């Protein structure tokens, strides 16, 4: 069982939200290190930078807290960023974009994370976003948490 965390799930491990406890419990059965990729890094660091610059004072503080955790978990090796085959991942997302049995496909990033999960051998997709979860289920991935 290889978990793949989407960016929203990852954020709930860095910023306190109502889903944070659920995210921790969902991740608990899996062995670290948790493999991430450069898209995760870009999304997380962009989110945290924007929060520190554009956010309200509360949001700025939360973003600073989140950044400290992000650096800590990377330094500790809990999160590790690996290389992957971007060409194949993007082609898979494009194929799903054409085939998903929905009226309108979700936005590209919401397709790309499930595709990255499939390409990297992840078979459990961890996400709170119904749009990405739907794409992952359509691709045959197990989705956690089981219920939203």
């Amino acid at each position, binding site marked *: 069982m290889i978990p793949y965390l989407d960016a929203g799930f990852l954020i709930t491990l860095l910023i306190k939200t109502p*889903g944070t406890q659920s995210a921790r419990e969902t991740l608990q059965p899996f062995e670290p290190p948790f493999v991430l990729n450069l898209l995760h890094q870009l999304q997380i660091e962009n989110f945290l930078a924007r929060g520190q610059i554009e956010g309200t004072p509360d949001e700025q503080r939360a973003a600073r807290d989140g950044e400290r955790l992000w650096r800590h978990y990377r330094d500790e090796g809990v999160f590790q960023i690996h290389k992957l085959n971007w060409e194949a991942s993007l082609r898979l997302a494009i194929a799903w974009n054409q085939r998903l049995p929905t009226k309108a496909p979700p*936005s590209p990033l919401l397709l790309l994370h499930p595709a990255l999960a499939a390409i990297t051998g992840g078979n459990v997709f961890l996400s709170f976003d119904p749009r990405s979860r739907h794409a992952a289920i359509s691709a045959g991935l197990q989705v956690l948490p089981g219920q939203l």
Partner: protein
Amino acid sequence: MNSQPPADDHPQDFTFFQRLQSFQRFVRHSQHGLEVRAYLSLPSKGAPIMVEGQIPDEILNQLSFWETLRSGATVSVELASGRAGERRTIGAVPVQGHAIVFEKRRVVADSESTQSFDLNTLMLHALEGAFKEVVLGETQRTRTKKCAKPDFFANLEQLKHSQETGVRMLEKFHDSLS
């Protein structure tokens, strides 16, 4: 009665992460009167480079952006007694079969595997040979704890911001995806 620990207690059979945790325990333990320093011997650079914690700027300035430790380079770790001022090398291993690549402050990749390395891991490699004698005592004392899965995210409890703040931020993030 076999006094040897079971095979799965052998440090070299630990997962990468368990070994890293053991190493960190060892470093913390060593802070009480002992120092641990890693020396990187780069064939192209001559004298061994000492690194402690992070790779210092003056060394970074000597390295190209991608500096590679190929087979034949060695990594050694010296254990020093703060009280007596005595030093002895406790581990020295050649880098074999793979190349360890520096990216600025982090040792990030092994070119022939999917394993990522940071400096602790590099030092851990150097400690492999001495790992049993140095750390095994500590490992045996913590054997019962070893199977307990640490909750890496427990320090989320320390976050001071409210859930409402987090929700607002997450909503902005989700909006940015649409």
